[in-house]
């Protein structure tokens, strides 16, 4: 009797301990994941900020007017301090990481000093330009190294908690990719002595703008289905599912989707006026058969067939077997940047895989484009004389304040970079400067 009672008590104890242990284990895991996430966040942010820093410094090199340069320097100062904060949050206390921190604070000091002074009275000196250029080069190297480490971290699923454990339990240097990677970064920086991406104009989100201006006849569900059938290019409209958007949507939208084998189509269209806002077709892609250029012909034809008139190609990019094209509306030879449309083409058989016309519908209207007050030659004088201008034209862009302005657009090169520079055609203000992105080194390339 006593024995069996004892047995029950004991086994209850064992089960209880087991349960407690399991709970503890779960809690420990949750805390570990949380700590890991904090480190991951700081690290990826650091890589991103370094990239942004590099881009901003590069852009500042091509700037000419003080009104543009001062805010840009302030921005660099801000980003460098954020990057510095990121470094501070990483578990690198046992690593010699002070050189990178020093480098970041150097950038910070330099930009702060130059940003707060009146650049009209005291413009950047020759020496300061040289150090800015040097900083640009250094930022580029550090950025590349960090991206390298980041690639290794992502590819091999490296954990910061492991680094911390490794650092805590060993005294001697370890074979650890993260630690090694950071040592390389550190070495790079040691060699130096004292010394948003808001860029993509096309993927501008609708700040203070929305689709409200879309109007037109109300579409019935049946008409929407017919339209979808035509756009998806399928035989039977009963295969299409239709839903209507809820109250949170900017404008009433019909969402159509269908599934056929491994192919899936999706379309957002406005209830009023039945305009296609967003189209996506997903299917497995075969070997590339068409060139980017042939894909462009398909995209252009598709736009014409769907009543998008006077669209001109702005940018084309090839990703694996997909071509992505950005088109801009053109009015009397003036490119209208806000009215942009992206088209996605499969380069295996030339099918249209996607269209997004949200920006176009948000901004498109009949515009009265004035004649420029400045001549092209006058505007050219406003561009940084270091920049070699290769191409020019007229363009309507949205200024920092969100107003549409008529500008002269110049594409030019300075050292290894290509810049797009917009000079206000009325008063000569330097409205916007973009450093045009280069291809990124393929991290998975090589043996």
């Amino acid at each position, binding site marked *: 009797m006593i024995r069996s009672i004892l047995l029950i008590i004991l086994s209850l104890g064992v089960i209880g301990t087991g349960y407690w242990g399991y709970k503890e284990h779960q809690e420990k*895991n*949750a805390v570990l*994941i949380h700590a890991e*996430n904090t480190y*991951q*966040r700081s*690290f*990826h*942010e650091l890589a*991103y900020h370094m990239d942004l820093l590099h881009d901003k410094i590069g852009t500042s090199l091509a700037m000419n007017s003080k009104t543009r340069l001062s805010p840009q320097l302030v921005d660099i100062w801000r980003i460098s301090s954020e990057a510095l904060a990121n470094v501070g949050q990483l578990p690198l206390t046992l690593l010699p990481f002070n050189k990178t921190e020093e480098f970041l604070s150097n950038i910070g000091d330099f930009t702060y000093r130059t940003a707060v002074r009146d650049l009209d009275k005291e413009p950047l000196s020759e020496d300061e330009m040289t150090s800015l250029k040097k900083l640009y080069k250094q930022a580029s190297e550090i950025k590349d190294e960090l*991206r*390298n480490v980041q*690639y*290794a971290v*992502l590819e091999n*699923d490296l954990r910061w908690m492991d680094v911390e454990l490794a650092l805590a339990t060993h005294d001697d240097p370890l074979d650890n*990719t993260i630690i090694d990677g950071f040592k390389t970064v550190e070495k790079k920086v040691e060699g130096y002595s004292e010394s*948003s*991406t808001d*860029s*993509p104009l096309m*993927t501008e*989100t*609708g700040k203070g703008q929305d689709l409200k201006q879309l109007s037109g006849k109300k579409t019935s569900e049946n008409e929407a289905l017919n339209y979808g059938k035509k756009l998806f290019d399928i035989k039977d409209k009963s295969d299409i599912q239709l839903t209507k*958007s809820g*109250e*949170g*949507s900017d404008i009433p939208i019909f969402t159509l989707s269908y599934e056929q084998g491994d192919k*899936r189509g*999706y379309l957002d269209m406005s209830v009023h006026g039945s305009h296609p806002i*967003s189209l*996506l077709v997903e299917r497995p892609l075969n070997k590339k058969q068409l*060139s*980017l*250029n042939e894909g462009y012909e398909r995209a252009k034809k598709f736009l014409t067939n769907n009543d998008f008139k006077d669209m001109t190609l702005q*940018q084309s*990019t*090839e990703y694996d077997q*997909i071509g*992505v094209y950005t088109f801009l509306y053109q009015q009397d030879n003036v490119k209208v940047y806000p009215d942009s449309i*992206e088209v*996605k083409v499969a380069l295996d058989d030339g099918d249209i895989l*996607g269209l*997004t016309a*949200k920006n176009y519908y948000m901004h498109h209207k009949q515009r009265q484009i004035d004649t420029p007050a400045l001549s092209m030659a006058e505007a050219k004088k406003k561009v940084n004389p270091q920049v070699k201008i*290769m191409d020019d034209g007229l363009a309507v862009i949205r200024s920092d304040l969100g107003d549409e302005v008529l500008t002269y657009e110049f594409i030019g*090169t300075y050292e*290894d970079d*290509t810049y797009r520079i917009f000079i206000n055609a009325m008063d000569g203000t330097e409205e916007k400067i973009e450093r045009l*992105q*280069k*291809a*990124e*080194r*393929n*991290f*998975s*390339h*090589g*043996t």
Partner: protein
Amino acid sequence: MVFRPLFYMLILGTIMFSSALFIPQYTKAFSPQVIQHGAVGDDVIELQARLQYLGFYNKQIDGVFGWSTYWALRNFQYEFGLNIDGLAGQTTKDKLVKASQYNEQDVKEKVRSGDKFTHYGKEGTKKDTNKQQQETTPSTPPTTPAVNVPNGFSQNDIKLLANAVHGEARGEPYEGQVAVAAVILNRVQSPTFPNTVSGVIFEPRAFTAVADGQIWLTPNDTSRRAVLDAINGWDPSGNALYYFNPDTATSPWIWTRPQIKRIGKHIFCK
């Protein structure tokens, strides 16, 4: 009788020998495609190598038609009296092939071994082969040394986003995955959320897949494509900042948000 086969062989041999003489000096010319800005691949490698041979292009031969290649090509077209359009069409390619030499095998070997070289010139062999730092990753099939990335994003940012999308929305319809990626990007733009992709993803308690570690599952190709679409401007969520699964959502607050639409298991809202 004995002489006959020998005789034929002699003739055959002569033919082969003489035809060998007439093989053009270049081993391969471009495919018939028109090469334009943004293109990637072998034709671009050949284009860059030939432009470099002629001294118009002095950057790395990376197989991606970027701005440097574009300006080099336009200069070439200018110098050779061609129509300056920055497109490598038939006429331009013919001129290039005529004016330059291209040893495909040699160039590709260099390109694939990860060598950086910027002097492919008349001197014959190329110099300045800085061995690039090798990755510690397993080798993949031959690719170009560089890839196109959307403005302002690195391959790593895309990978991180793909991880998040895979952890949050695998098994959802494709547009549902694009929508999840779009929500993350909308948050980056929004003043009430962190300003970086990493900040938004790792914001404490923002995404369940991050909290329970599912974000570290290996993402598939679909989630990567979904991320690219979202970055390139597709937003099936209708500018949403939140989404939730009505079957598992625990916070009553989320139901008070104005709903935009439902895709798969997720409801997207403002």
